[in-house]
């Protein structure tokens, strides 16, 4: 049905966001979207690289874009917004010949250019489509109130990311609604969670993530669906730190949207990987689904 | 009945209602046919039809404006008639078009070259017969046969219209389409292959020879300004009398631009040039441009509006520069 797309899991996909990776692969396979692994991919450089130098950052990303080009493919999908930003930024900056020349100087072989990077969310929306998603649902997520949280850089800046609305994105809402969930309007969809400051400045993350969890509770969400490994870690793994810093008592499950999709598509538990989350969504999920029945 | 006899019959029938019928007759030597103006029945028998009818008789039509005349045309000539009708320079009610299928006309220069190769001079040509696809010229008592395809005018080799696009009396069987016409015009291809500075040198080389006789213009059926051509007027005063390449080339540009979207590529301008200047190439280039831009070809549709006398709010093929 849809053509193949290269798949770039990102470093965390091998570690802290393993369950994002497994659920993404399972969901795409179930929906007929063929993800082809990029052989021997390397780190895109993430934020640390661009805060150091833009050419270095682009070179680290371009090595991977070139690998995609070598596969004979024109596009790569990644679940991680940070990887996505780096890959897209590298491509965008390399459109200027002088910049690209500097990047090529750092690489073994020059980057041929012309490889597009999209998020898994965008690939599911545009290459699979809501109709297919809808018709593939086996267990509708009926009765489940989900707040969709996109993170700060999935859609921003809009000129670079070129997908969905930058202030009120709807792609994830639409997919989970198609899966039968009740998506609640979440006003802080694109507000930053604290990003990679968890280690050097946990206080900052506690404050920002706390605000998000508070808002999610405020709109009556059963859980917050996310699309970013860093967001997930801040909201889930660090939820205890948030509670301690703010004197709160959140117990909000924070699954990846692909995990919720996997539930609706009746995918095996080990691929969904709910057990790898700190706040287990299963009790809330089964309760919601049971009530709906 | 031959095409010629059939034409004569039809002309005789129509002649009483016509001021004159324009055609061709035997010329000053066996190789050349020249225009014929049939005013009485006796003239009809002078009519010729065939490969020596190189002239485009449409050129004379505007001078008969207001009078009812007939004209005998080849397929290519008929496009000029259509174009004149379209521009309302002649009146459809005042022109009767006689035609028959055309198998191509000769390029005298090519015939001359063939004779020269056989050691003969074209000036001595005594008799020319065209039999199907073969032209036989007898000169100084010696007959030389040559395939028509080898001595035909260039335009005939790529002819799209061997039969008139518009005729009141079309006689005989239609002529077959030219098979496998060459994709690109050789003249244009040669110019296309040159660099821009080489093309400047090309025109410099050729226009040096121009003697400003305006034969090109006078032979052109679409040059309807006649005595009022801006090449020779003072009001407006486009060209000076200076004998420079600039002024001579400028005239060719005027001629070509005035023909943009109107030229049917009958080739009379170039055929008429006594200095063998390849002036038709400019018009061919413009025709190609007009076709690319507006998907338009002149002289095929009486009801069409020439592309430069109309516009579209959104042009399909004009991509304007962004700054």
């Amino acid at each position, binding site marked *: 049905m849809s053509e193949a797309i290269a798949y770039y899991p990102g*470093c*965390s996909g*091998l*570690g*802290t*966001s393993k*369950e994002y990776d497994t659920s993404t692969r399972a969901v795409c396979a179930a929906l007929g979207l063929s993800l082809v692994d990029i052989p*021997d*991919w*390397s*780190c895109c*450089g*993430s*934020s*640390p*690289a*661009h*805060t*150091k*130098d*833009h*050419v*270095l950052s682009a*070179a*680290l990303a371009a*090595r991977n874009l070139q690998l995609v080009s070598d596969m004979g493919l024109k596009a790569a999908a990644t679940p991680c917004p940070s990887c996505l930003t780096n890959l897209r930024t590298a491509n965008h900056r390399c459109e200027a010949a002088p910049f690209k020349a*500097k990047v090529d*100087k*750092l*690489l*073994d072989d020059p980057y041929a250019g012309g490889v597009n990077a999209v998020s898994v969310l965008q690939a599911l929306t545009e290459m699979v489509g809501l109709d297919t998603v809808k018709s593939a649902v086996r267990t509708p997520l009926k009765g489940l109130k989900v707040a969709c949280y996109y993170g*700060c*850089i999935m859609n*921003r*800046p*809009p000129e670079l990311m070129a997908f969905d609305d*930058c*202030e009120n994105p709807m792609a994830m809402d639409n997919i989970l609604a198609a899966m039968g969930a009740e998506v609640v309007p979440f006003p802080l969809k*694109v*507000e*930053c969670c604290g*990003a*990679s*400051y*968890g*280690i*050097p*400045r*946990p*206080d*900052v993350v506690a*404050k*920002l993530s706390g605000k998000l969890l508070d808002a999610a509770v405020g709109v009556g969400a059963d859980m917050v669906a996310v699309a970013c490994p860093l967001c997930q870690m801040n909201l889930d*793994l*660090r939820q*205890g*730190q948030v509670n301690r810093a703010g004197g709160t008592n959140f117990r909000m499950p924070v699954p990846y949207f692909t995990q919720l999709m996997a539930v609706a598509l009746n995918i095996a538990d080990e691929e969904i990987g709910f*057990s*790898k989350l*700190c706040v287990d969504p299963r009790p809330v999920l089964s309760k919601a689904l049971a009530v709906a029945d | 009945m031959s095409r010629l006899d059939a034409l004569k019959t039809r002309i005789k029938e129509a002649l009483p209602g016509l001021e004159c019928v324009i055609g061709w007759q035997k010329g000053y030597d066996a190789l050349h046919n020249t225009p014929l103006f049939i005013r009485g029945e006796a003239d009809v028998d002078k009519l010729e039809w065939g490969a020596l009818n190189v002239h485009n008789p449409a050129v004379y039509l505007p001078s008969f404006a207001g009078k009812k005349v007939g004209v005998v045309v080849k397929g290519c000539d008929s496009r000029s008639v259509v174009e004149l009708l379209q521009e309302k320079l002649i009146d459809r009610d005042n022109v009767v078009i006689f035609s028959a299928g055309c198998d191509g006309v000769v390029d005298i220069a090519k015939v001359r070259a063939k004779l020269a190769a056989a050691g003969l001079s074209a000036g001595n040509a005594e008799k020319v017969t065209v039999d199907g696809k073969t032209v036989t010229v007898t000169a100084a008592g010696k007959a030389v046969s040559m395939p028509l395809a080898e001595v035909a005018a260039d335009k005939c080799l790529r002819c799209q219209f061997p039969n008139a696009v518009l005729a009141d009396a079309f006689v005989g069987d239609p002529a077959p389409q030219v098979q496998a016409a060459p994709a690109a015009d050789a003249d244009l291809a040669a110019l296309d292959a040159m660099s821009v500075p080489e093309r400047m040198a090309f025109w410099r080389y050729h226009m040096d020879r121009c003697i400003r006789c305006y034969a090109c213009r006078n032979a052109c059926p679409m040059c309807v300004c006649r005595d009022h051509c801006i090449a020779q007027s003072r009001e407006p005063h486009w060209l000076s009398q200076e004998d420079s390449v600039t002024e001579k080339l400028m005239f060719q540009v005027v001629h070509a631009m005035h023909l943009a979207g109107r030229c049917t590529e009958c080739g009379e301008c170039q055929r008429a040039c006594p200095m063998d200047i390849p002036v038709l190439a400019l018009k061919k280039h413009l025709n190609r441009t007009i076709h690319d831009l507006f998907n338009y070809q002149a002289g095929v549709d009486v009801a069409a509006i020439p592309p430069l006398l109309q516009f579209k709010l959104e042009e399909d093929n004009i991509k304007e520069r962004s700054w």
Partner: protein
Amino acid sequence: MNIINLTRDYDEDFVHRVEEESGQNVSLCYQCGNCTAGCPYTFAYDIPVSQIMRLVQAGQKKTVLSSKSIWLCATCESCTTRCPNMIDVACVMDVLRHMARREGLAAVPQVKTFWDSFLDSVRAHGRVFELGLLINYVTKTGRFWTDMDLGPKILPKGKLAFKPHDIQGKEHVARIFERFERESNS
């Protein structure tokens, strides 16, 4: 408060460098404050981002490059997305960090150390080795208590590898860093 002598202390070269490296025209900023209004990190900044922009316009290199704010910007793109004058503010912040590094300035050292540790990990393995990165960071900063509380939560999940996933092309990645260092020093 310091009084700024704008005739003497305006560093024209600094303004030009920021504009050149970021590709942004900082004089487009009319100080509406939208960047500060939207910035989630304003509470943690010592100088709000709109004032960083103002100080760049004013050529106040030292104040800007020694600010904590430029190390606390997460490039969340809120400022860039909402700037009415289409200035890529996040890119300006990035460039200011680059310049601060070159000047040897890092007003929030643990952030710089964390980023450096991250890049060291990429350089060594081709990909980030998460546990190794944390250990490296703790060693460098001496902040041994960092995320101690999270260990019991995450370790049983079996997600954190104890060994790095070295890639075959890690030498290529290392060469990227080497060439980068050579280029920046030349």
